[in-house]
């Protein structure tokens, strides 16, 4: 499997880089760029969430909470306290990492439904705080966020943001692929395969779960902070339980335990509601339907199912 995996990894990276590089040819106006940037930001969250759900076999129904903490953290530090945006972004992400660790250690001892409920509760608490602490967050109306700045120059404009998000997505995918193919990545997959067998070969399951929980929270917080600075505005709507469900749906639809699947899932399910503007009011119905159809027809997700089909046709 090793040479094949390595080519799949390198090939996948090259394909993703090519798509990111060539996509602007098809992005005829700023609206298209805007959608592409949102795809990239969601993909960063999904790649991290897939590490947790797809590879380590743990569930989180509260990842919009980490996304929101990154967004609001960076927004509040810049808008209310005058921090430089990059420092605020780094501080918010580090704060989320710490919180995810402190919360993750106890709740990751839970399994299955209990873990789902605990992460759900965490996400709900964060979204309630975002909606009610209006002194800091602006409450239900949201708050405006200063743009990202580098060496005193504000980074605005869709093309610059496309480059930033595209580059970051490539980096996140590369780091994730590296991790999965390392002893630590195998330890994560082992937890999914059989937790008791992982323990008897020396894997500290609680510690490894906390690690992947923190890593996925960091990816979400980073994407959240960037989203806030990019769009210049943040509302509690982006922090709700429904957004957590959207993120999980993207991962499941794209393909669990497939990093490129997470990217594809984010791309399809971020674009779909934009294309079908009529369905805007029924967005959650669409997500629900996608989740159900995925579980029934392609339970392994889109990318793994397609990959398996092509592998079978391949007359090796």
């Amino acid at each position, binding site marked *: 499997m090793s040479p094949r995996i390595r080519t799949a990894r390198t090939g996948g990276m090259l394909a993703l880089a090519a798509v990111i590089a060539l996509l602007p040819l098809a992005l005829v106006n700023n609206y298209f760029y805007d959608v592409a940037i949102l795809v990239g930001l969601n993909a960063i969250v999904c790649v991290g969430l897939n590490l947790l759900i797809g590879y380590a076999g743990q569930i989180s129904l509260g990842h919009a909470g980490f996304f929101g903490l990154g967004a609001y953290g960076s927004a509040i530090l810049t808008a209310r306290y005058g921090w430089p945006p990059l420092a605020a972004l780094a501080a918010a992400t580090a704060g989320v990492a710490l919180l995810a660790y402190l919360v993750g250690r106890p709740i990751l001892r839970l399994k299955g439904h209990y873990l789902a409920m605990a992460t759900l509760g965490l996400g709900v608490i964060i979204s309630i705080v975002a909606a009610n602490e209006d002194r800091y967050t602006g409450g239900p109306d949201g708050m405006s966020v200063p743009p990202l700045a580098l060496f005193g120059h504000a980074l605005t404009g869709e093309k610059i943001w496309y480059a930033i998000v595209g580059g970051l997505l490539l980096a996140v995918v590369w780091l994730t692929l590296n991790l999965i193919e390392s002893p630590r990545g195998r330890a994560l*997959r*082992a937890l999914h395969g059989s937790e008791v067998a992982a323990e*008897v070969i020396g894997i500290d399951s609680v510690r490894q779960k906390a690690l992947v929980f923190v890593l996925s929270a960091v990816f979400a917080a980073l994407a959240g902070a960037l989203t806030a600075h990019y769009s210049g505005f943040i509302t509690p709507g982006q922090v709700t339980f429904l957004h957590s469900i959207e993120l999980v749906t993207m991962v499941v639809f794209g393909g669990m335990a497939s990093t490129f699947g997470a990217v594809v899932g984010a791309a399809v399910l971020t674009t779909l509601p934009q294309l079908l503007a009529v369905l805007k009011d029924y967005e959650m119905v669409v997500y629900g339907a996608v989740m159900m159809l995925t579980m029934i027809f392609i339970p392994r997700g889109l990318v793994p199912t397609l990959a398996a089909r092509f592998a079978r046709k391949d007359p090796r």
Partner: protein
Amino acid sequence: MSLLRTEGLSKVFGGVHAVQALEFAIEPGAVYSIIGPNGAGKTTLLNLLTGIYRPSAGRIWFDERELTGLATHQFAAAGIGRTFQNLQIFFNMSALENVMTGRYLHERCGLAAALLRFPSLARAERSCRAEARELLCAVGLEQYADAASESMPYGALKRLEIARALAARPRLLLLDEPAAGLNATETQEIVRLIERLAARGLTVVLVEHNMRLVMGVSDRVLVLDYGHKLAEGDADSVRRDARVIEAYLGAEARNA
């Protein structure tokens, strides 16, 4: 000096004494078998010896170090490996990756090294892969190296579990019914494998129902009945023990 010994080891599940005040010692290099009727407490005992269960009372010493109360992964780090009666394969990985994962304790790498794939890690991965292949050869599974584990036959998975446990380089290997569900040929292969491991000096604890297998390879046999030690000794003396015959071996022993 014994490699593993227990003092007054007990496990109670809601009033049921699965293991009661058990004392025994395993000498290094021995093949030590644990037998007993269904429900005698054999698997409970293995779970106690790997930290999966915490004892209700009593202590466990391994190589003169007390392990009582430690977590399972710490038992593994101390040098105790095991296989499972009901397979615990990582079905989301290939056979080779299962064995590579078994090398976890010896392939420690930092998070930064893993994320950035340091050259030192890439080198370590290559040697890990080579070693895993050798282990697959050692248990006779070289043809399955790249196979998805979910596509492998049952008998091969039994041996894959042994290869994965060996990859951690344990000093004590606990095998929970390694021949259960295997045909005669496959059982013979397992016996030869256990003999090869014992010949290399590995201490093996064997929980098994197949009496012929147990009596053939064991240096010492512990007989459990309702969580109690019924008898302990070499295979011949256990086979002749009147209490053992009555409690467990019964017709099978008289026929042997």
